């Protein structure tokens, strides 16, 4: 082979069959040896036209449609849409409803971050940790089921309030769950952060600099791990967060420095689990009595929404970052415009600087590190010197596990 042919980059494709990804993505990597030279990706493989459907339904129906935008961020999308509609229709949400919304919002964050921690552990080949985190996650799911009636797609938030109250008998259940997590957090931090192998795989891997994070408009834990102090709960409080003391969690608070790598993203997410526990506890102690919805009768609520005219934006800090719903109502049953910007949408571009210069074996953990819910079955086709071989996700996972073993030696 001529020397210049050796230099020619070859192409690796990943996707789009991504069973666990809410937006199946097709990646195209230009590789030089083991190193990623350039990255490109094409999202939009599960486009269902939700906004189009929403513009043909009324706000009460849309709330349940927004639940199904993403199975993990049920409260986030419903809350964000409701906030927008409430601003247009000038509906005053009762304080108690705001607190219940915040409690559920934080439980969602706990289960989402634990889910992510398990996926990250799996990508590193640490499957026992995956099973540990998912086992403890079930406890949060039990509490969510107890409070809302559903494990996923809660259907609890309604325009003008919430659909179910938290009874005093339910407080001990929440309290038990919180104290378990607070006790467990130390163990999880220890398992993830003191582990030599995880440090070796994640430290200085998939770096996103502060400058890149700001320029690419990264949001949520991905931005905070790069040292950007953004958190909607602190910057633009909604629901009950105005009364609560929420400060953005940055990696330097825990380890004294910011690298902007995968390790820092683990730090931020795990610490946020502890922060969520504190917020829920504070909410429970300060929750005021009163009604849980501004308008109980759905027909009346619809009549109010039908009269509403104007436009508004609902912004919510999702587990993955800022989620934004833009709604415009023109005095009709259904909104004339509805635009959703989910948090992963802002974060996807950060893959490009993160993946550049990294190895194939690092792709799974870096792709997972922004929490796009990627976990299961990727298929990879490698085109090398014109010969096409197919790598399964298992092969990719094996490469990742082998690298872990290599580093352990």
């Amino acid at each position, binding site marked *: 082979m001529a020397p210049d042919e050796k230099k020619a980059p070859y192409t690796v494709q990943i996707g789009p069959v991504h069973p*666990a*990804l*809410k937006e199946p993505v097709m990646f195209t990597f230009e590789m030089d040896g083991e190193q990623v030279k350039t990255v490109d990706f094409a999202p939009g*493989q599960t*486009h269902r036209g939700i906004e189009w459907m929403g513009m043909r339904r009324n706000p009460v129906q849309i709330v349940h449609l927004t639940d199904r935008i993403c199975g993990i961020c049920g409260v986030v999308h419903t809350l964000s849409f409701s906030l927008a509609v409430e601003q247009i229709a000038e509906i005053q949400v009762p304080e108690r409803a705001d607190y219940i919304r915040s409690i559920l919002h934080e439980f969602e964050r706990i289960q989402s971050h634990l889910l992510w921690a398990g996926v990250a552990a799996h990508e590193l080949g640490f499957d026992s940790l995956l099973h540990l985190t*998912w086992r403890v*996650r079930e406890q949060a799911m039990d509490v969510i089921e107890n409070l809302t009636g559903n494990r996923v797609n809660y259907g609890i938030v309604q325009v003008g309030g919430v659909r179910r109250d938290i009874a005093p008998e339910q407080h001990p259940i929440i309290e038990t769950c919180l104290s378990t997590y607070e006790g467990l957090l130390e163990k999880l931090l220890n398992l993830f952060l003191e582990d030599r192998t995880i440090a070796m795989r994640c430290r200085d891997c998939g770096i996103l600099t502060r400058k890149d994070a700001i320029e690419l408009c990264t949001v949520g834990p991905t931005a905070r791990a790069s040292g950007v102090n953004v958190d909607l709960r602190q910057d633009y409080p909604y629901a009950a967060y105005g009364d609560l003391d929420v400060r953005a969690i940055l990696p330097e608070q825990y380890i004294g420095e910011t690298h902007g790598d995968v390790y820092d993203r683990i730090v931020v997410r795990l610490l946020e689990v502890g922060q969520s526990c504190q917020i829920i506890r504070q909410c429970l102690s300060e929750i005021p009595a009163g009604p849980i919805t501004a308008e109980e009768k759905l027909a009346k609520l619809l009549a109010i929404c039908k009269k509403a005219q104007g436009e508004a934006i609902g912004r919510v800090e999702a587990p993955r970052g800022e989620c934004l719903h833009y709604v415009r109502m023109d005095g009709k049953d259904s909104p004339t415009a509805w635009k959703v910007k989910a948090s992963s949408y802002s974060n996807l571009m950060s893959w490009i600087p993160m993946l550049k210069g990294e190895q194939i074996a690092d792709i799974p953990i870096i792709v997972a590190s922004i929490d796009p819910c990627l976990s*299961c079955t990727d298929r990879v086709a490698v085109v090398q010197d014109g010969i096409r071989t197919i790598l399964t996700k*298992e092969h990719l996972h094996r490469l990742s596990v082998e690298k872990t073993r290599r580093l352990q030696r």
Partner: protein
Amino acid sequence: MKLNSSFNRSLWVYHFNSGSCNGCEIEIVATITPRYDPERFGIKLVGSPRHADVMLITGPVVHKMKDRLLRVYAQMPDPKLVMCIGACGISGGVFFDSYNLEGPVDEVIPVDVYVPGCPPRPEAIIHGVVTALAKLERLQGERA
């Protein structure tokens, strides 16, 4: 087509997202983790359709995924079963009037077991796999 004896005891499951909201995915992964632990019955999630006996499909089939679904289905070795998880794969669910759907899963490939719910609970998914197992045994009995 004769089923071999090892097939009776362990079903390997492959999971395909044809445009789902992620809710069913989470419940499928929750199903394979320690609380429910179906691995003690040999039920295991695998990463390649070529290794799988059962395909779990979540979500309605969107335009872009139709061709991929057919290709993945063709890659699975016989005998194979298809399970449709969640309301939107069965009927379209909340997405019934979307312009981007190829229709419910059974209009694209044949489905053997339907698990309703939005999303179905892990217990329901395990029940679905057990139903699939019973169907396989019946098929085997008819052929024996």
